[in-house]
């Protein structure tokens, strides 16, 4: 062995030691150091860390929020309505030691958490009405579920950060009933709208008809008044003029009638020779002689 080889060997041994005793904790991780089976410390600080080689074991845990998505559950609410509820939760491993001691594996943690969430959900939702869930009271309800879950998960070394109702649907069997109700509601609305249309149309038409009748009768009244005024005026004029000599008027008017109306009917006349008209017919010129 040359000294060169010796130095190289020493360097390699040193490197091996470094590899065995150094470890890094990622920003998204935390670590539990276990010395020969006994936990000795929790490392929350990311970066380079030292451990005893061969003796210490480092168990890494995620320090981020972890997902939990329990399956869909059918829940009977306080008002006996059934609801299909799906929740999701986000949790964090807050105490790696406790976590290591109580659940150890991710699957175990998930199944336990799922049970905790499910029972909290059933208990709380079993007391509320659907109408409450469909309102601003939803928040306090989910808060109660969250608080209960937090308390139950604490001994597992887990901090539950949030439990939320992802969706709450009516089950298919109930949906049909809801559809029917929605349909009948719409039908009612449609009927009402059409009837309202008829109502409006009738109102408008009737008003128009009434207005027309009023307008026409008004006009009739006015025109009759006007005509009457005309007749009255004419009468006044006649009376004024004819009043001057009623006897002559009588004669004048009679002449007009003979000439016009009577003549129009082409009458058969039977005349007496004694009449004023025919006085010359019988007498000849006798009257003219003095």
């Amino acid at each position, binding site marked *: 062995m040359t000294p060169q080889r010796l130095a190289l060997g020493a360097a390699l041994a040193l490197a091996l030691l470094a590899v065995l005793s150094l470890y890094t904790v990622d920003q998204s991780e935390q670590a539990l150091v276990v010395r020969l089976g006994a936990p000795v410390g929790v490392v929350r600080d990311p970066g380079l860390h030292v451990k005893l080689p061969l003796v210490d074991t480092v168990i890494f845990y995620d320090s981020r929020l972890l997902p939990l998505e329990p399956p869909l559950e059918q829940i009977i609410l306080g008002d006996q309505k059934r609801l299909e509820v799906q929740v999701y939760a986000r949790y964090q491993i807050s105490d790696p030691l406790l976590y290591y001691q109580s659940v150890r594996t991710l699957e175990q943690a998930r199944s336990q958490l799922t049970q905790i969430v499910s029972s909290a959900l059933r208990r709380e939702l079993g007391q509320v009405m659907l109408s409450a*869930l469909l309102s601003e009271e939803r928040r306090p309800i989910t808060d109660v579920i969250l608080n209960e879950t937090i308390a139950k998960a604490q001994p597992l070394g887990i901090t539950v950060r949030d439990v939320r109702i992802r969706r709450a649907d009516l089950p298919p069997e109930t949906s049909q009933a809801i559809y029917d109700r929605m349909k009948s509601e719409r039908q009612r609305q*449609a009927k009402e709208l059409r009837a309202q249309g008829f109502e409006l149309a009738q109102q408008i038409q009737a008003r128009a008809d009434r207005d027309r009748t009023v307008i026409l009768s008004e006009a009739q009244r006015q025109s009759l008044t006007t005509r009457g005024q005309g007749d009255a005026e*004419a009468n006044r*004029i006649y009376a004024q003029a004819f009043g001057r000599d009623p006897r002559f008027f009588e004669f004048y008017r009679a*002449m007009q009638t003979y000439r016009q109306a009577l003549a129009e009917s082409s009458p058969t006349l*039977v005349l007496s020779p004694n009449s004023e008209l025919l006085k010359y017919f019988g007498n000849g010129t006798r009257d003219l002689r003095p």
Partner: protein
Amino acid sequence: MDVRMEAVQPDAGADADARPGAAPGPGAAPAPGAVARALQALDNILRSLGLEGKGRIVFGAFVLAAWILSGIYRVEPDEQGIVLRFGKWVDTEEPGLHYHFPYPVSRVLLPKVTQVNELQLGGSAEFAPGSTGNPTTTTGAGTTAPGTARSDLANQMVTGDENIVIAEYVVFWRIKNAGEYLFHLSDPQATLQMAAESSMHAVIGEYPIQAALSDKRQEIADHAKEMLQRILDRYQAGILITQVQLQRVDPPAAVIDAFNDVQRARADKERARNEAEAYANDVLPRARGEADRMNEEASAYKEQVVNVARGEIQSFLSVYETYRQAKDVTSWRMYLDSMDQLLRKSGKVIIDSSGKGGAGLVPYMPIAEGRDKGAAAAPAPGAPR
């Protein structure tokens, strides 16, 4: 033996596969003989490349320089550089050219922070979270397994009045804080989707169906956005919701006909009203026109009778004037004039010399000779019926 539990791959990171901290366990310690063999092998390789003596030193220096220079990295304008030293987040770099200690001491993650991502929810795209062009995202799609089979029901939401609507919406988001985004959530995108669904369901549950279908859509989207942002901030997710768009809110297919019929009924109502108004608009002006005509006719009549009266009395007065000047002659002439006219039109003139007028003749004579039957048949005024 190191046990790495829940070592989920970082969601966003340019070199996410690099795990410098994964130190080999004690079981992997090579035997000293093996080290000598490896050195021999290296020696052989270098020798075969023609490197000996000085050449080896040059080669070593070259390798060292390359190793040191491998710490140079560039942050693109849409990225942020998250520098990790031994896994610890030590720095956040802005766009530009930077240096970090070479592997395995430091590494850098380069999430795209300015890019606005789109997450389509509801509808067919429900379970393929849209991470449009974000190559650093790998989770999300895989973590939404529960409910996948129920995608037909997935976008159904119960409204405040216990009706059902189907909603499609899009969430636009970008990374607000790269460090939080990378290190606070194990599955930021799936979490975003869950939170988005949760808030949209909650908000729609506070509104009646009519509001959700029509005028309150914007309000619902705004509320959902606020709520979603609040939830994400509580998770310190480092995500900024830029917009929530409610794209489509429909009643379920089973009842859509009834809803459409309401729309039709609304149109029918409008139509009935329009028709009635058309009728009114037709009738009223006509009536007014007719009224005007009646009034005008009446005034015309009035003018007419007055004028005729005036004319008549004018002519009467003229005649009267002449009559006054020669009463006997004028009246006799007027009488004869009238008789003249009358006799000219008369069909028959009988002169009864008995001097008793027509009285004796009447019983034996047909009054009408077929010339004017109607007039003859008419009963005399005042005759007993």
